[in-house]
């Protein structure tokens, strides 16, 4: 049965998706359902002077209008930020209160201030358009670069500064830079991205008056966290009176981790009206109101000696938080970012400062990679630039500084347990045929094209996280995961996980894990996720944590099942438990020909006639797995680009990724995760940019303005893996979901700057920017 692990088994969930039988939130139709549409601010900042409900309620089909004041009167609180960051002076981050529906002031275009409930979607839309609101436009501060000097957005938050945070040893780093024989300095922006899962956010709320229970079906990556926040912080209902179901979800990429105003208001309104309510975002709303990603301004200085040995790295970043702190908005540009600034290198002194600032734009939070792409961009761009300045081959400078001994404690608070960075680098050099690059460059030049090659040797921290450490750093929740295995009397099993799959293929991968551990066929394993009414409390899926943490929980439960099976079978085979061996689904009494199958033991557990004295019947075990460390996937990505100097168009002609994700359960799914991440990373480098004008209007509010990567923007990718097993979880797994988005932007921009022969090209490297760089205009 162990032949299951490591096999590219085709996904079982595909059957429903390729035949149109998937069940996404908007596919649900409840008898008597009504529809919600939100009235949203057209201004980046405005005082709400009054809302005339009658203007909407006069319309046919409109049932009710609720405002922020109604929710507040109903006891609904403000949307919390789940990670407390402290400034260097010891003070808590400054939090601007965020009612689900704005009450006194709106602070970004698209912020909702009322919800209209109507019998049809069209009537709700007409009602929201007809709703008269007296909004007094106020001066806004949209630009990040001037945010600390501009208009103060929130009362009591001076300079729009939520926190001034730092990590590392400042004095040691300053001294290292002073002693350096060469310092490379880069200043750059990490462009704002808009996640754009193809399924827009949606929810359906149903109130059961008899049970006094709300069932909220919604597009969430973590239904239990959603339930916890809605109940403990927003006072929607007692926790046991709210069920959150996350059915098939059409992509998340981080944007569906967070608790948003819309599902809060809809769930509350469904109870207030005692009617089912559905809300589905249209794409325009998604652009305006989904949490955005990235958006940093950074200056980095890397000091080295004459041989290119890194001595110190100093980083100063201004991170855009948007108008409010989203659910994990404070953690992303701090603990998920600056702790990764060591990268793969032995830089002995690192110091980073981060100013988290408010602007009149949509909240910014985790998007695929969440802080780690930004850190990798800093490290890998500056290492490449340093190599060029020092006239050292970029591979050679990395080899001179790479970490070779593990465990390795970085100057920025992490302990890497294991890795072999040179192995993935060496393999990538071969796979990308770097040796043949000079000839390809010459050939390109003969065609009038500029060709460049760029590397990114990244590290990430996944498998978040050890609960105690996370909580001590300000995290508001534990970061373990639950896994339960219920063995049915016939010997089939149902596995429940607190992880959530929104494309990652857990129903297949987790079935591989459970079937392998229990020695039963995969078709005897059902994997259930995404429903607080069915499984134990869990933390959900983000940060490439599902297999390393959620999968480990299922392994622990399988071990408990086997241990109990040994007690039962020992009794029936008239031996002692330590004389029972379990292998390939069979319990054998050592030294005898007595054996029992897994199914026979399961049946005995539920029909306990010949059964150990004092042992409970049944065969069902659960585990909460709390990791002892983060996992550290790492690898080398190599991009090769060709630039048409006439047009400035950059083509990625080859992209190679060699990643170490530890042990792999299903290589087909892992490769798919890399492909998708790389596509988003190339998107960031060349195409995607969320742009607000100075008045805070989103200029890239549709697919006609925001450049999503299309099939003909991308090459096929060369993907391989190397393996150093994670040392501290039972699967040896590290996580693979974000690597592509982490490595690709730096690799592509290193290739673009290599081709252009200059460093000052910003992401996204659009044809206009590249053409201007070439023309010097």
């Amino acid at each position, binding site marked *: 049965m162990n032949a299951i692990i490591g096999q590219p088994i085709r996904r079982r969930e595909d059957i429903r998706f390729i035949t*149109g039988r998937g069940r996404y939130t908007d596919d649900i139709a409840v008898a008597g359902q009504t529809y919600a549409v939100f009235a949203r601010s057209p201004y980046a900042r405005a005082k709400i002077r009054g809302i005339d409900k009658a203007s909407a309620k006069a319309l046919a089909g409109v049932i009710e209008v609720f405002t922020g004041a109604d929710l507040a009167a109903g006891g609904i609180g403000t949307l919390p930020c789940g990670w407390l960051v402290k400034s260097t002076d010891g003070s808590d981050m400054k939090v601007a209160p965020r009612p689900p529906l704005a009450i006194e002031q709106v602070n970004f275009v698209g912020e909702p201030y009322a919800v209209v409930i109507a019998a049809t979607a069209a009537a709700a839309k007409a009602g929201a358009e007809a709703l008269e609101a007296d909004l007094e436009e106020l001066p806004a501060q949209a630009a990040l670069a001037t945010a600390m000097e501009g208009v103060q957005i929130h009362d009591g938050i001076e300079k729009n500064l939520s926190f001034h945070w730092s990590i590392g040893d400042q004095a040691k780093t300053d001294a290292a830079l002073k002693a350096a024989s060469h310092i490379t300095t880069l200043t750059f922006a990490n462009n704002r991205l808009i996640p754009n899962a193809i*399924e827009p956010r949606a929810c359906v709320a149903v109130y059961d008056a008899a049970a006094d229970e709300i069932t909220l079906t919604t597009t969430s990556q973590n239904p239990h966290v959603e339930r916890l926040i809605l109940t403990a912080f927003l006072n929607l209902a007692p926790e046991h009176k709210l069920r959150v179901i996350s059915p098939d979800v059409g992509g998340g990429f981080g944007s569906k981790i967070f608790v948003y105003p819309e599902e809060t208001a809809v769930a509350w309104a469904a109870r207030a009206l005692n009617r089912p309510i559905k809300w589905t975002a249209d794409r325009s709303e998604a652009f305006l109101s989904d949490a955005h990603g990235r958006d940093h301004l950074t200056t980095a200085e890397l000091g080295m000696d004459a041989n290119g040995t890194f001595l110190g790295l100093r980083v100063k970043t201004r991170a855009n938080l948007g108008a409010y702190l989203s659910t994990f908005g404070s953690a992303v540009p701090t603990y998920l970012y600056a702790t990764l600034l060591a990268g793969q290198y032995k830089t002995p002194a690192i110091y980073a400062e981060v100013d988290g600032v408010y602007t009149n734009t949509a909240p910014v939070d985790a998007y695929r990679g969440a802080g780690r792409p930004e850190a990798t961009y800093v490290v890998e761009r500056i290492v490449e630039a340093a190599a060029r300045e020092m006239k050292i081959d970029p591979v050679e400078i990395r080899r001179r500084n790479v970490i070779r001994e593990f465990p390795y404690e970085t100057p920025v608070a992490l302990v890497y347990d294991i890795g072999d960075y040179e192995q993935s680098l060496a393999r990538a050099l071969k796979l990308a045929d770097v040796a043949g690059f000079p000839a390809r460059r010459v050939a390109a030049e003969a065609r009038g094209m500029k060709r460049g090659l760029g590397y990114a040797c990244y590290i990430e921290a996944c498998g978040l996280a050890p609960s105690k450490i996370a909580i001590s750093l300000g995290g508001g929740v534990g970061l373990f995961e639950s896994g339960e295995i219920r063995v049915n009397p016939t010997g089939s099993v149902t596995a429940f996980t607190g992880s959530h799959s929104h494309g990652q293929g857990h129903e297949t991968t987790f079935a591989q894990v459970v079937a392998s551990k229990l020695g039963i066929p995969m078709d005897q394993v059902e994997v259930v996720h995404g429903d607080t009414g069915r499984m134990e409390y869990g933390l959900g899926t983000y940060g490439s944590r599902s297999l390393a943490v959620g999968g480990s929980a299922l392994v622990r439960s399988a071990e408990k099942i086997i241990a109990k099976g040994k007690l039962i079978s020992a009794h029936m085979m008239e031996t002692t438990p330590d004389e029972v061996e379990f292998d390939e689904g069979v319990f054998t009494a050592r030294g005898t020909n007595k054996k029992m199958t897994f199914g026979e033991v399961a049946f005995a557990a539920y029909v306990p006639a010949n059964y150990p004295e004092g042992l409970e019947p049944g065969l069902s075990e659960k585990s909460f797995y709390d990791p002892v460390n983060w996992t550290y996937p790492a690898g080398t990505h190599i991009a090769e680009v060709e630039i048409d100097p006439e047009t400035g168009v950059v083509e990625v002609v080859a992209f190679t990724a060699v990643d170490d994700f530890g042990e792999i359960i299903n290589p087909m799914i892992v490769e798919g995760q890399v492909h998708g991440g*790389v596509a988003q990373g190339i998107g960031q480098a060349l195409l995607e940019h969320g742009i607000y004008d100075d008045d805070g209007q989103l200029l890239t509010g549709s697919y006609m303005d925001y450049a999503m990567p299309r*099939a003909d923007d991308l090459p*096929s990718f060369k993907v391989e893996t190397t393996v150093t097993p994670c040392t501290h979880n039972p699967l040896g797994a590290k996580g693979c979901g974000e690597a592509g988005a982490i490595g690709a932007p730096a690799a592509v921009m290193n290739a673009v700057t290599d081709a252009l022969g200059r460093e000052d090209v910003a992401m996204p490297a659009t044809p206009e920017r590249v053409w201007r760089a070439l023309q010097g205009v």
Partner: protein
Amino acid sequence: MNVSMVVNGEACEIEAAPNALLVDVLRQTLRLTGVHVGCDTSQCGACTVRMNGRAVKACTVLAAQADGSEVTTIEGLGAPGALHPLQAAFQETHGLQCGFCTPGMIMSALDLIESGERLDEAKVRAGLDGNFCRCTGYHNIVKAVLLAAGANA
């Protein structure tokens, strides 16, 4: 107004508002929820269905325009146990992850395959540029279409 269509081989007559979109009639009236909506500017292609043998974005077609038409949605292409070769190819090559873009992607790809043109990677990529996928980076989608095209050849 009254709209008559043959949808997935079955004749149906429905009442629809003059401004009703085909996608809403398919999803809401006929409950063919494999047809998805991913945008409001006819860019993403998640709602792609076939009308009289050609791929159309159902968000850009009025139900009234479909009167008298033959419409095929993903539900009409093949079923579990009796998959269309293109559906099977998407599973075989891991050409989908979250599955949301998949029905539209398959219906667009079907057009490409049935065009009779000899397909290669570049042609498949160009032919699918009206369909967004955020999960796969298109790598395995391209493989799926080429696999199915080969199987049909």
